[in-house]
């Protein structure tokens, strides 16, 4: 793992693996969606509308996962000044934000047949909304600072503060929700789950993870090339590809 800290090594690694992971992800997505949309039986309460959970739940999982990775990569970048960690963090943030937005959208769509409206201040949806703002704040800070290395380090501090605050936000929003809302039960979490529904859910979870990894590797690679464009190894690659000299 440590040898990946070298930008050159990481570049080669990401070239190889993003394609492999991407292929596996595509396969998993197809299998998962087929099982989820056609094979799994309708829910006894919600009928067919529950099927959106096969997209909603994995994207919500990943939105939290990616934020933790953001904080972890940020910590590595801060403590050991590893450029690859900076690049991984910068590449992950937009993906995490998009997944959070997807979770919010699919959560809303799922909610419509159940609640009658597109938005309800459900604890989990509200937490996701706050998470979206955390992502957007991270991206805004990164964009506002000109020097890329300073920007990564400042954003890393923000991500670390955010990751400590995340459980606090989650529990406080849950508390807030049970106080202010009536006893309406929201079935967004699908607690009682039949194995025929669990399998596609887990497959989609893996697929989303693969999606994040493949996409992150591609983005990180591009970001790395941009940041390191003055260095010798990048010039070699550019020359080998026949790119015009800067």
């Amino acid at each position, binding site marked *: 793992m440590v040898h990946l800290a070298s930008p050159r090594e990481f570049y080669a690694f990401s070239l190889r693996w993003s394609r492999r992971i991407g292929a596996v992800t595509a396969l998993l997505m197809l299998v998962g969606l087929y099982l989820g949309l056609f094979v799994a039986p309708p829910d006894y309460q919600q009928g067919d509308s529950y099927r959106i959970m096969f997209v909603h739940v994995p994207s919500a999982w990943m939105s939290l996962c990616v934020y933790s990775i953001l904080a972890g990569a940020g910590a590595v970048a*801060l403590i050991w000044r590893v450029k690859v960690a900076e690049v991984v963090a910068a590449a992950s943030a937009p993906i995490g934000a998009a997944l959070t937005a997807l979770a919010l959208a699919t959560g809303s769509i799922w909610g419509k047949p159940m609640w009658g409206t597109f938005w309800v201040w459900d604890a989990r949806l509200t937490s996701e909304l706050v998470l979206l703002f955390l992502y957007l704040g991270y991206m805004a800070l990164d964009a506002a600072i000109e020097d890329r290395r300073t920007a990564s380090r400042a954003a890393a501090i923000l991500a670390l503060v*955010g990751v400590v605050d995340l459980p606090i936000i989650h529990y406080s*929003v849950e508390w807030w929700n049970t106080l202010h809302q009536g006893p309406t039960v929201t079935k967004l979490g699908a607690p009682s789950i039949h194995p025929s529904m669990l399998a596609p859910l887990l497959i989609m979870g893996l697929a989303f993870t693969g999606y994040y990894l493949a996409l992150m590797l591609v983005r990180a690679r591009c970001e790395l090339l941009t940041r390191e464009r003055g260095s010798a190894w990048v010039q070699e690659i550019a020359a080998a590809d026949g790119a015009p000299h800067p």
Partner: protein
Amino acid sequence: MSRQSGLWRACLGLIRRDLLCVSRHRAEAANPLLFFAMVATIFPIALGPDPKALAAIGPGAIWASALLSTLLSLEGMFRPDLEDGSIEQLLLCPHPLPVLVLAKVCAHWLATGLPLLLLAPLLALQFGLTMESTTTLLLSLALGTPALSLLGAVGVALTVGLRGAGLLLALLLLPLYVPILIFATGAGGAVQRGLAPSAHLNMLTALLVLALTLAPIAAAAALRVRG
């Protein structure tokens, strides 16, 4: 123990300096307070003068106004220091930077949070809050505004001197402020329903303690990175 007295002297010196600077810019210093009062007045205007409705939203509206006012005043913590170059003195001071940051936060709260606390009873009157509600509101403000200043210090340290820093600061801090807001207004809500606010105030205290221990370290790290 001269090192300890040196640290104490340095912190008192910082607090004294910041408060002196604020007191000599009194008009500017009053702005956040006026903003607080203005925003709190906007709620009844926007939502109608029904006394029962106002009493119900009172604590929340006043807290939202306090939060927005604090956001407005936070930049003053480090931006003047960056502009005139005295931030280097802070960064090169031979004392632990987190403690010096805590001194600056102290000064900031004394200059902005405390006045909010003192004006709040008048605004509580505007919303027709009961004695009990007002006391809970003041307690929640006393516990919550220092936490806002502490977390705010992290945000300001990260964004000081950037273009669009004011809005960026709000975007960064609002998600982090959510728990404080929830427990502070939760206390008000509990009292209005005849319950004890102690659970909420305890959580608020816990958040304040957490902020006291972690925020200065994060803010110091951010100052060094930006600095």
